[in-house]
């Protein structure tokens, strides 16, 4: 047997990118379950369709670029992108919305930039923002939590949900099926005291919105699991959450009609936890050093709050992440680590 000429190290911890991505998928489970429990089968259908589209588009893009298809599909990143995008979409989204979103994520944001590792922007968020700008109505029509839906509306079962997504049957567009999200309500409110607002609308659950708080807690659990498995470091999510907490505390305004909502409301509302643990931690498009990641995360947090309070969109995590993707190279430039032996150079 001829001796192999390879360079050191000759050993490896045997963890692959594919495995890392599988862990990420696993970690989305609690949040996805919570979303399904609260909003029905729509999220699962989104995920199913998105994954199918993503694999198909990724494979054909690789084929066109003459790359080994199986080798690249094995890294699971297309599936992760698809799942993350599907979670961000309103449940019961139409198939063409999902397809367009996946096209922007996989083809435009990723493959056109050279494939995995070369994309400057978070693919899932590119897809989401493209959809938000193109189809604002479809993208802001969040269904009401099942438990708040009037009895007159039948909640679609899994099969019906699939048929709705495939446009075979009509989505029940009657009032009560969709409902303004708590974030919308707070932003649009200019007359009621915060407490009155919360009392008036049933969507506000215990802390932050009926169901939303459970989805956020689910994503928090998943994120902590990934943190424990050292898939990423604490710097980005923690600094992002801290920034949101501090900003919302500054603008809480004692719960007046001007209030932007309590810190807890913001931490457990909207896509905060999902964004902090699953979007902002995307390593490809984020800053590299720990110091840089703190700045990067804090930037996302501050921008998220600013857009939530003064912007025009239902949630702001996607825009905040994309804006900070822009600044990641700059942050990298100014936040190099101090290597061994540089602290005591005369």
């Amino acid at each position, binding site marked *: 047997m001829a001796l192999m000429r390879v360079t050191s190290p000759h050993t490896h911890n045997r963890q692959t990118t594919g495995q890392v991505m599988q862990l990420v998928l696993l970690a989305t489970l609690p949040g996805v379950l919570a979303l399904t429990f609260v909003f029905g089968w729509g999220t699962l259908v989104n995920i199913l369709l998105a994954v199918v589209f993503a694999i198909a588009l990724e494979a054909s893009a690789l084929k066109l670029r003459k790359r080994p298809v199986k080798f690249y599909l094995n890294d699971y990143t297309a599936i992760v992108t698809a799942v993350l995008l599907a979670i961000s979409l309103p449940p019961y989204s139409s198939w063409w919305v999902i397809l367009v979103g996946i096209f922007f994520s996989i083809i435009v944001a990723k493959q056109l930039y050279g494939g995995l590792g070369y994309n400057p922007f978070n693919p899932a968020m590119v897809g989401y923002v493209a959809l938000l700008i193109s189809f604002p109505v479809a993208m802001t029509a969040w269904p009401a939590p099942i438990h708040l839906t009037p009895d007159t509306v039948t909640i679609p079962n899994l099969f019906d949900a699939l048929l709705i997504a495939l446009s075979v049957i009509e989505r029940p567009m009657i009032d009560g099926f969709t409902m303004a999200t708590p974030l919308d309500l707070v932003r649009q409110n200019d007359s009621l005291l915060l407490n009155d607002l919360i009392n008036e609308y049933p969507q506000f659950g215990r802390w932050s919105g009926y169901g939303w708080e459970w989805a956020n807690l689910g994503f928090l659990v998943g994120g902590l699991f990934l943190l424990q498995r050292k898939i990423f470091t604490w710097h980005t999510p923690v600094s992002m959450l801290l920034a949101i907490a501090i900003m919302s505390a500054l603008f809480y305004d004692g719960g007046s009609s001007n209030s932007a909502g309590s810190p807890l409301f913001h931490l457990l509302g909207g896509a905060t936890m999902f964004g902090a643990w699953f979007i902002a931690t995307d390593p*490809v498009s984020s800053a590299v050093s720990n110091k840089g990641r703190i700045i990067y995360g804090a930037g996302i947090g501050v921008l998220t709050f600013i857009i939530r309070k003064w912007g025009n969109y239902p949630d702001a995590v996607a825009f905040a992440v994309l804006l900070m993707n822009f600044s990641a190279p700059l942050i990298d430039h100014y936040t190099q680590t101090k290597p061994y032996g540089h602290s005591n150079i005369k």
Partner: protein
Amino acid sequence: MRKIWDIHGGVHPTENKTQSLSEPILQAAIPPYLYVPLSQHIGAAAKPIVKVGDKVLKGQTIADTSAAVSVPVHAPSSGTVFAIENKTVPHPSGIDDLCIVIETDGLDQWRERKARQNFNLFTDDELLSIIRNAGIAGMGGAGFPAAIKLKSSDSKPINTLIMNGTECEPYITADHSLMLEKANDIATGLAILAKIIKPKTILFGIEDNKLDVVNGIEAALNRIDFSTHSGCTTDVRVVTFPTKYPSGGEKQLIEILTGKQVPSRGLPADIGIVCHNIGTAVAIKDAVCLDQPLISRITTVTGEAVKRPRNYHVLIGTPVSFLLEESQYQADQNNRLIMGGPMMGFALADISAPIIKTSNCILAPTEAELPTPPPAQACIRCGMCAEACPASLLPQQLYWFSQGKELEKLEQHNIADCIECGACSYVCPSNIPLVQYYRASKTDIKQREIDHRNAELAKRRFDARQDRLIRLEQEKIAAKQARQAARKKANPPNNKPPAANASAANADTAATTDNTEREATVKAAIERAKIKKATHSKTTDDPVARAQAKREAQLAQDQADPEAKLKRAVESAQQRMKKLQVKLVAAKDSGDPNVNILETGLEKAQSKLVSSQKALDDYKKASNSED
């Protein structure tokens, strides 16, 4: 309990150390041929001082060197010098290098040795030269000549001596077994080091996966009073710390034990620390006390492709294949042969490469044990490498810049601080051979520095040459002007009577004759310059064409007008004669002792004139008859 510090990063690969520790160190047999490379460490190679066919004794110096960073090489056993030629050596390149091949006679007969039981009788300098002449070069892996590290410098006093018994690489147990079995030798070697270095603190660093050696080491150290050797109060401590790769790296160990960091591009001596491997301590003890040079070492042979993994006390120059045979090597199961550990060792190209002074381990793994690395995937900048990097670098950025060969960016990101430990590649989920990119980039940076230095030198030489050419041209022009000026001045005084005023005439005539004589040579020079100029303007900068044109032009000129050339010769002979006559008169007047010489010179000039005149006449006759 002494405080210990933690280092950034690090990894915990499977240790696999127990396999080779199941049996004690075995003295390996003497192989029929020993292949002793002349370059076994950092620095210059030694030069052979024996010839093919020479008889050598064990321990005899067979190659020596006067270079600063280098040590001599000794015969590991007695025998005959069989060849001095390029052979396979253990080097990542797989390039052959000069080796002295010794055919052993099996007698293992020592050269004469002078045991020095009391090393305190020797001065530090004597000990240093003993250590250097024993060929001791760092046994830890890098192989830096030990004597150089030991040389004291007044500007950098050493207060802490660190004994490195860390051995953090998986599989390797050479140092471990040495500490188990030769604790007393280590202690004696350490005492010699303490005498030379005179440290206030000696720290003996051991990872906590080797706690079984601690008692033995402590007992051996307690037997020695280090303060008497070092001449000052010396505190000796054995320090254990958690196992983590690469805590055995010199810089990392220093941080773990002292909390200090060696400055970037600096040496441990800059912060008053020196670090030696325990293997070096034993080698120093053997060299000083027993007068035995470094001709053998402890090498671990392990991996699943050998049936009897164990440690050997092996002669330098023993082929790896010989050692593997002793361990019942299963060649068909072995996928690669590694010299060193799995993290930093290099794959051997040839099983016949010899053991050298830095060979601490031969690792023969099976494919299942250390699988072939899969193709690398894209870097997703996950940052696991940055978390693992003991130098706190940003490997993902370095990888990016290495791919683009952006050497300046690499330097900005401190690639020079990379210790090439391989922790980044070990954790990379995309299986990118990161450290290989850094090694290549580091050599590229070094090469670029050399290239720039060479370019600078070449530029200086080119500029100097240009200056010289310009100067010569200017001198030519100056000479031409001087000649023209002189001709104007020289014509009238030429008619003056020679001996009007003795001294005045002397000076005057000397000048004028000088001028007239120069006139002829300058005329010739101008001719040449003209040709040169002409050829210059014709051919721009092609030296070939220039050379050819010049040659042709000269030939053409000579052929075109041979009469002029002959006439010139007659003229110059006449002038020289005239000048000599004047000089002779002046010399006779002043009673110069050189009169005789001048007289013979005049005679010669006369005959030259006659012959050149004759040549001219002959030519004229010939040309006339031709007409």
